[in-house]
Every structure is written in structure tokens, then in C-alpha cells.
């Protein structure tokens, strides 16, 4: 079945899928749509059309050349990719360096039955992303490549399925750890993604209007809206704006949640990888080798925490801490801990272990960190009032709002602090606006750091840092007793005592 995807035959070098000849230019054309609109509707000189056509032709040529010049092959030892015409590139990665294999299919790729394969190598050289990308191969080929690259036992191709992340053609022995529950949609509005999306949309629209040369406030409807609001009181305007943001933000967040997590499944594959399949328009399928797993992180942004929700991410070598490490969408906290336990093959989630509180002096330090900046702002406003530069209400309002907020934030940050040393795990929790609970495998701790600032020395506190090759690489135990910080280093990093 793979002979037709190896048009060159000799030496095992294969081209990308020929369907890319259609997809790559189409993709570029889509990017050019705003420019086309500008040229066709706002342009009044003829040569602009030619300029656009020339650019289009150039883009299509580049797409074709890229297809012609890109080749890849997988030998028993290495995966190699050659590309480029003017700047020839030959990248070669030992197969045992392959850490993740991700398959992504955007809508256009899906329409042609194609998938983009990204091979993560965990190497971080400046200027390189440590990643090999094949854009694109047929979905069957991507499945075959993934099985081959992640299979350490044999060099022979594994099983192939028809589409990226198809649920129907899974090999036997696959076990499901989690799947989407649409009751989780209630967490979508708590992610703030919607508000961010609205901002991006407005920015994008503004830019397009700007390029066409139409001022946004020239449009009749917008003009009318602005006039209407100008006649109303400032209170009403604020209420309307907040209401609009809440409603539109929630709807946007729902849409984004559905797009990102449609058909979400977390499975354990028989070849020892964890796999996340998800996505409505863009299908994503992320594979993570279990032997690269060093722990799990349960993340609770403030709003999500208020709604008793949480996310769950992998702490693994070679996959960073971003979107790719995501194991679970925003979901009930209990589910996040359950998934954490399942991923680690534990019966009870280490992330729910009772935590040791940090010393009371840590509370004072957290409060100083939050209250002092607030006090500085209030003092600056008060001085401005004293100099008659500002009226009195700004600093009074700031004091009334920032003061309690700073105290609450400081206290909550202290209450979040905690750590626990279990038989197999070090559990560390911190943060208020973004609270993270990381359960790190003790076998994954490759170093220890204790640092003490002048202020910490006054309270006999120190910050201990568990150093690992996975995730963000360093996990802080903020403000614990100096003795304990040193003692833990000896126990966890050097001797791994139980």
C-alpha cells in the first residue's frame, strides 16, 4: 500500500503527497484574500491587478517548487528530510531521538485527505525549532509514519488507519482514559478565550477596513451606534459594554471550545504512547511516549477554579509545556485529577495528596509582594491629588479597590503554596491567578537548587527548585525553611531516599 507514496523508489526517498500541488497554492490564495479584496474593490488603477496576479503566480510557483524539492526517508537508523532549492537543507535525526509525533489536518488538508506530520526531537538549537515537519502526506501515510517512528521494537511499518485520528481503525489493546463530555461546555466561558478572540476579531476587522481605506466610523451602522452611545450616560455605556463582552465572550469561548475539543479522546496505545485526538475543523492528533513522561500538572486559572474546574497537562521531556502537552480540556477538577492518575498509572491521583503548608513567614512575604505595589499606586495618585493635578476620588477609589484586592491575592497565593513528598512523586502547588499543582516523578528530578535573597535570609526562608528535563524544566517550592530546602535536595536529587 505504500509503494505509490514512494514515487522515487530508489534509496527510499519519498516525495510529499502530490495533492499538495493543489493545497499549497490554495492555502496561499486564502492568505491573499484580503489583498485581493483591496485590489479588486478599492483599486482604481489597472496595474494593481497585474501586481496581484504576479504575486499569486509567484506564490503558486513557490508551492510547486517546494513540493518538487522536498523529500524524506526513514531508514532503520534515522529520519531525513531534504528541502529547498536556493538554500538546500538536509536534516537528519536519529530515530531514537524522536520524542513526539503529531498529526494535524486543517480543513483544507482534510478536504484532500492530507495531514501534516510534525516530528518533535526535543533538541533546542538557536534558530531551529527542533522539529521536522512534513507538509503534507496522505492521512494513511501519516498514520504509517507515526506507527513506524514511535515503534521501537521493529523497523517494519505498523498498522495504518484511514484518517488522522480515526476512531474506527485503532489497533487492539488501545485503552481509553478520557473522552469529551458536553457537560464540560459550562467551563468554556470561564476560560477568557472568548474575550481574547473578540479582541482579535475586532483588531482583524479594523485592519481590513483600514486596508480597504474605509474608516470604521464612516460605516453608517457604526456611526449610528457611536452617536447613540454619545447621547447616553457613561454608566449605561459601561453596563452595555460589559454585557456585550460577557455575552459575546461566552459565545466565542463556546465556539472555540467546540472547535478545539470536538471528538476529544485520550487513549493509551499498545505501543506505549498516550494519544490525544481532538478538533472539529482542524483535526489534531498528538502522541506522547509514556517513557518521556515525568509527571502531570493540574492547572487552575482563577475563574476556572471558582467554577471548580481545571485543566490537565503532561510534564514530559521534549514537548515543552504549551498546547501540545494538553491532556484534558477545561473540565471538572475531579476529572482533571482522575486523568492525572490514569496517565501516571496510579490508583490515587498524587495531585490530590495532602500538602504541607509553607511557614507563616511566607504569608508575610506574599502580602508584601502584593500590597506594596498597590500602595505605591495609591500613594502616587494621592501625591497627584496633593499637588492639585488630580481630584481626590482616584486615589480614594484605588485605595478602596486595590487594597482589599491586594490583601486577598496575597492571602490566596499563600494558601496555594504547598508541597508533599510521596513515595514516587514530589507534589508542588503555587499560584493564585494561575494555580498549578505539579506531580513530578522523583525519578525525573535531575538536580536541585536552593536560592535565598537578602529578604528571605531575614526570615530564614529559601526557595527550593526541583530541576528536571521535562516541562518548564524547573519547579519552585517558594519560601520554605532553609533547612528543609537543603534536606529535600539531598533526599530527592542525590539519594532518592524514601
Amino acid at each position: 500500500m505504500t509503494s505509490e507514496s514512494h514515487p522515487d523508489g530508489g534509496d527510499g526517498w519519498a516525495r510529499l503527497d502530490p495533492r499538495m500541488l493543489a493545497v499549497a497554492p490554495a492555502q496561499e490564495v486564502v492568505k491573499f484574500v484580503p489583498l485581493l479584496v483591496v485590489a479588486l474593490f478599492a483599486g482604481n488603477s489597472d496595474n494593481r491587478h497585474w501586481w496581484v496576479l504576479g504575486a499569486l503566480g509567484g506564490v503558486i510557483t513557490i508551492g510547486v517548487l517546494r513540493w518538487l524539492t522536498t523529500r524524506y526517508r526513514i531508514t532503520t537508523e534515522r529520519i531525513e528530510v531534504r528541502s529547498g532549492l536556493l538554500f538546500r537543507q538536509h536534516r537528519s535525526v536519529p530515530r531514537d531521538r524522536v520524542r513526539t509525533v503529531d498529526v494535524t489536518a486543517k480543513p483544507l488538508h482534510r478536504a484532500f485527505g492530507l495531514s501534516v506530520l510534525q516530528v518533535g526531537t526535543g533538541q533546542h538549537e538557536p534558530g531551529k525549532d527542533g522539529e521536522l515537519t512534513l507538509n503534507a502526506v496522505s492521512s494513511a501515510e501519516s498514520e504509517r509514519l507515526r506507527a513506524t517512528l514511535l515503534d521501537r521494537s521493529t523497523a517494519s511499518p505498523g498498522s495504518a488507519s484511514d484518517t488522522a485520528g480515526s476512531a474506527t481503525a485503532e489497533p487492539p489493546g488501545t485503552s481509553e482514559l478520557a473522552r469529551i463530555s458536553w457537560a464540560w461546555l459550562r467551563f468554556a466561558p470561564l476560560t477568557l478565550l472568548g474575550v481574547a478572540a473578540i479582541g482579535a476579531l475586532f483588531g482583524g476587522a479594523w485592519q481590513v477596513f483600514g486596508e480597504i481605506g474605509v474608516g470604521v466610523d464612516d460605516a453608517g451602522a457604526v456611526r449610528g451606534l457611536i452617536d447613540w452611545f454619545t447621547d447616553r450616560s457613561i454608566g449605561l455605556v459601561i453596563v452595555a459594554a460589559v454585557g456585550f463582552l460577557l455575552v459575546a465572550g461566552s459565545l466565542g469561548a463556546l465556539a472555540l471550545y467546540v472547535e478545539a475539543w470536538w471528538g476529544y479522546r485520550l487513549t493509551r496505545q499498545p505501543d506505549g504512547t498516550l494519544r490525544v485526538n481532538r478538533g472539529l475543523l482542524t483535526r489534531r492528533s498528538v502522541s506522547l511516549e509514556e517513557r518521556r513522561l515525568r509527571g502531570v500538572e493540574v492547572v487552575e486559572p482563577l475563574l476556572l477554579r471558582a467554577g471548580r474546574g481545571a485543566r490537565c497537562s503532561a510534564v514530559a521531556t521534549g514537548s515543552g509545556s504549551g498546547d501540545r502537552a494538553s491532556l484534558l480540556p477545561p473540565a471538572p477538577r475531579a476529572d482533571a485529577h482522575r486523568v492525572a492518575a490514569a496517565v501516571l498509572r496510579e490508583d490515587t491521583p498524587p495531585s490530590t495528596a495532602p500538602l504541607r503548608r509553607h511557614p507563616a513567614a511566607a504569608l508575610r512575604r506574599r502580602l508584601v509582594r502584593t500590597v506594596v505595589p498597590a500602595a505605591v499606586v495609591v500613594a502616587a495618585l494621592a501625591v497627584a491629588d496633593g499637588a492639585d493635578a488630580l481630584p481626590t476620588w482616584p486615589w480614594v477609589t484605588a485605595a478602596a479597590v486595590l487594597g482589599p484586592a491586594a490583601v486577598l491575592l496575597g492571602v490566596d497565593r499563600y494558601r496555594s503554596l504547598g508541597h508533599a513528598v510521596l513515595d514516587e512523586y514530589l507534589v508542588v502547588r503555587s499560584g493564585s491567578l494561575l494555580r498549578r499543582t505539579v506531580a513530578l516523578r522523583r525519578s525525573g528530578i535531575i538536580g536541585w537548587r536552593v536560592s535565598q535573597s537578602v529578604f528571605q535570609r531575614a526570615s530564614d526562608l529559601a526557595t527550593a527548585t526541583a530541576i528536571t528535563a521535562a516541562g518548564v524544566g524547573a519547579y519552585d517550592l517558594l519560601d520554605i525553611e532553609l533547612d528543609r530546602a537543603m534536606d529535600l535536595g539531598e533526599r530527592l536529587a542525590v539519594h532518592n531516599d524514601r
Partner: protein
Amino acid sequence: MSDNSTPLRQPAHRVSDRAITWWTVHAVIGWLVPVVGAVVAMALVDDLPSIFYVGLIVLVVVAVGHTAVMPRWRFRVHRWEATDDAVYTQSGWLSQQWRVAPMSRIQTVDTQRGPLQQLLRLTTVTVTTASAAGPLHIEGLDLALAGELVEQLTATTQATPGDAT
């Protein structure tokens, strides 16, 4: 050889006392830049406001104080030790740091010698692990001692299998 029952013990060895000279010269070079800049300004501009001279006096006082105190303070803090199990370092002066890298996790051992260090027969030994938190540095080691340390570390880490992650 390592006494595990007293985790608070300091790493056993001090760095070379010639490191005090090294840190002092570094501090002098660092402070010379703003001081020379100020002197040049005095030479070129006639009517400098009095606040300038106040600032200059503060600058000189801080510079002299830092140059006098920092190197000796550092020398009292900076320590290192390599046991069979791990490399320990202690560094800093106002804020201080302890680092531990288990032998089994060490990836490379490098040395650097700047021109000043060569004059003083000093070496900085850098021990890297597979972590994003950065390597361990042992600054201001005596040249011969550093050679022995690198040999010891290289021998130990080569004997350890695995990719140290």
C-alpha cells in the same frame, strides 16, 4: 565520604583565594565605565547642576564599597564539592545559591579561562545537565585543581549509562 545525616553542611572546599583579585578587577572594570563617563562630562561641560556632583559622590561611594566588600564576601560564600554521588556548589554574596547535580545526571563538563583568569591561573568549571535551569558554575578554581576535578567528573559520568534525563 559524604555525610548524609547533616544536610545543612556546606560544600567542603573553598575556591582559590586568587579569585578575590579576579572579582575585584571585575568590579573595578565595571565601575570605571560610569565614573570615567562622569569625569569626561565634567571636563566637557562647564555648568553642571549641583545634583550631578551629589550623584557622582554617591556613585563613587557605592563603587568603592562594592569593590571592597563584594569580593571578600563572595570568597566566604563560594564553595564546591564533588562526592561520589553529586556535585555541590554554593555561590553569591547578598543573595546566595546552592546547586546540586547528581553524578548520574551530568552530561558535560567544560572549563573556561578568560585572559584575566589565565593571568591569575584560575579556571571556571561548568557542569551541564539536561535541564533548562542552566548549568552549574564553579568560578575561580585553581588551574591544577580544576584539571583534577574535570578528570574525576568525566570518569564518573562516563561510567553512567543512559541519556541523563
